[in-house]
């Protein structure tokens, strides 16, 4: 066991998988010699050589297209999009190509590609670096979307993602990269995709969150307990496509109330889909409408107002109070 940050856990997972499966290739902009702009691939090129871990020309569509071609030839590519805001450059190669490979060819070709990419607010990046764009891929059939919230989960989920026979987008919240350490076993373990984790038990309200918002929700839950003596049950979704509705429903049966905390803008994203599925599966257990604690439907904000725009524990607390009062 070792204490690791999330970025270390990610590097460690890539290292394990490069060693275990020679079909795994890691590539992207600056991932080779430089070890990635966040050092996620630190030391991997030296260890596995430039045929396994390499720099590509600067073109996102080209990077994912390369991965698609390698995948239909039996490799397991793990390309990196340097920041997820650049995904628009590769949108066709992901949603139009990768996610359809199996369907388009009736199962003859598959695309076991894991796209890794940093995203997430609160670190004052320039425009198009921090946006939470996972919702676009919640609506994309044929691809899974994973967002870990801890170093331990990051390793287990990344290993599952790379071993998954279908394409996976693996989103790494920049604020969580080095914000805390956790015990991460050195050996091989996986966490299944599509299975949520109840990270705090409680009986009054179910709080559904993922990524950095899990920590915001937990902070709010602790404070709520201290101030009001009310207990929120916090679910870390871990995978936003598909959504683990069973875990959510089981919790709502107990709490009868729910809120979703989401870093992405309000409309038509993962939160909306979660609420739609709650509506289909648990509406008779609800005593109040499901509320959303999210930023408004603006473009991701300029750095100087970012911290005000992102959901805070106070905002989550207010939403908890509101859902209790309904």
């Amino acid at each position, binding site marked *: 066991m070792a204490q690791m940050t999330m970025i270390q856990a990610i590097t460690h997972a890539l290292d394990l998988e490069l060693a275990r499966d020679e079909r795994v290739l890691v590539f992207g902009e600056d991932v080779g010699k430089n070890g990635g702009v966040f050092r996620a691939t630190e030391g991997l090129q030296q260890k596995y050589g430039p045929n396994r871990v390499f720099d590509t020309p600067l073109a996102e*569509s*080209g990077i994912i297209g390369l991965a698609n*071609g390698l995948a239909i030839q*039996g490799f397991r590519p793990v390309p990196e999009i340097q920041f997820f805001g650049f995904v628009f450059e590769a949108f066709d190669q992901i949603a*139009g190509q990768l996610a359809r490979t199996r369907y*388009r060819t009736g199962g*003859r*070709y598959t695309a076991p590609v894991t796209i890794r990419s940093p995203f997430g607010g609160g670190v004052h990046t320039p425009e198009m670096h921090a946006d939470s764009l996972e919702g676009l891929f919640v609506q994309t059939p044929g691809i899974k979307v994973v967002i870990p919230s801890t170093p331990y989960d990051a390793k287990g989920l990344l290993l599952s993602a790379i071993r998954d026979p*279908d394409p996976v987008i693996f989103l790494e919240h920049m604020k969580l990269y080095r914000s805390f350490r956790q015990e991460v076993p050195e050996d091989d373990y996986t966490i299944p995709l599509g299975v949520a984790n109840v990270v705090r038990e409680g009986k009054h309200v179910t709080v559904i969150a993922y990524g950095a918002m899990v920590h915001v929700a937990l902070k709010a839950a602790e404070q709520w307990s201290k101030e009001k003596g009310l207990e929120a049950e916090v679910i870390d979704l871990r995978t936003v496509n*598909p959504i683990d509705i069973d875990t959510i429903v089981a919790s709502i049966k107990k709490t009868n109330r729910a809120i979703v905390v989401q870093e992405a803008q309000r409309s038509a994203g993962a939160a909306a889909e979660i609420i739609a599925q709650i509506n289909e599966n648990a509406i008779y257990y609800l005593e109040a409408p499901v509320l959303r604690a999210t930023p408004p439907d603006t473009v991701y904000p300029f750095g100087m107002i970012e911290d005000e725009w992102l959901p805070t524990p106070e905002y989550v607390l207010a939403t908890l109070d509101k859902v209790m009062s309904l």
Partner: protein
Amino acid sequence: MLSQVVARFEIPYVQVLDENGNVVNPDLVPGLSDDDLRELMKRMVFTRIWDQRAIRLSRQGRLGFYAPVSGQEASMIGSEFATKKEDFLLPGYRDIPQLYFHGYPLHQLFLYSRGHQLGGKVPEGVHCMVPQIIIGAQIVQAAGVGLAFKLRGEKRVAVTYTGDGGTSQGDFYEGMNFAGAMNLPVVFFVQNNQYAISVPRELQTRAQTLAQKAIAAGIPGVQVDGMDVLAVYHVMHEAVERARNGEGPTMIEAVTFRYGPHTMSGDDPTRYRTKDVQEEWEKKDPLIRFRKFLEEKGLWSEAEEQADIEEAKEIVNNALKEADAAEKMTIPGLIDTMFEELTPTLKRQRAEFAGEEAN
């Protein structure tokens, strides 16, 4: 104040047969056997017959999406003929003849046209991707296939096709640039048939040739008479063998013309080109030219070609019957091809759409 020239580039243009089938470039006549030469003609005849038949079927509503190919036979047949069976094709929607001669069953190509999933299920042992609809998307994927061959040390080549319109896409440059930077075994084959639907070649780019776009990616670019099957075969053979020998990618611009509409979905070519232009190109016809060349060599007869035509018709008819017999698709069947193992959400939806549950 130009002080020195740091780089200079040339774009060769290759022609072997002129419009009358005379050899204008004896040095470049490929060393093909008489049987191979006859085979090239037979395949071009097949392609013309297939096209006429497909257009008729399409008008009768018996085909789905179809992009006519007449006029482009030399580009299509000559280029594919220079590949080996284990080379991997990444085609566009018009490149049905190359797929057929690369081993793709014809009835599946009919099914592709009709919109049946089986149409895209490339059989084992046939080395290609399904025709691409998104202009340029296959070009970056070709670099990935080429990299796979290189990493495994296989002497195979990825061949991707696009049109004159496709060369304006970013993916076209990205694909060539990746292949160049990584020295990959890829051939980028552009069929410049003068139009992207209605938009003429001059409006795509100010570049004098499309072939010169290769220069920016640091790879060789060649322009070839795309109505001359021997010239196409010659440049393609060189490109494919260069790639196979680890000497890197090539881009080929075949200058050609489509006689028919863009697709059978309502395109009217008289809206964007004149009869004169069409007639000028018909004078360059690839079949007429090659027929004259073969006749001169005693390798062609009316009777032989008639037999080829009859054979082609029969192959097409049989394929059509087989396509008609394909099993119907089902919604649960479609759901089954979304993931290797269905997600819980999809399992529920599968049950719902299979009528196994109310909700």
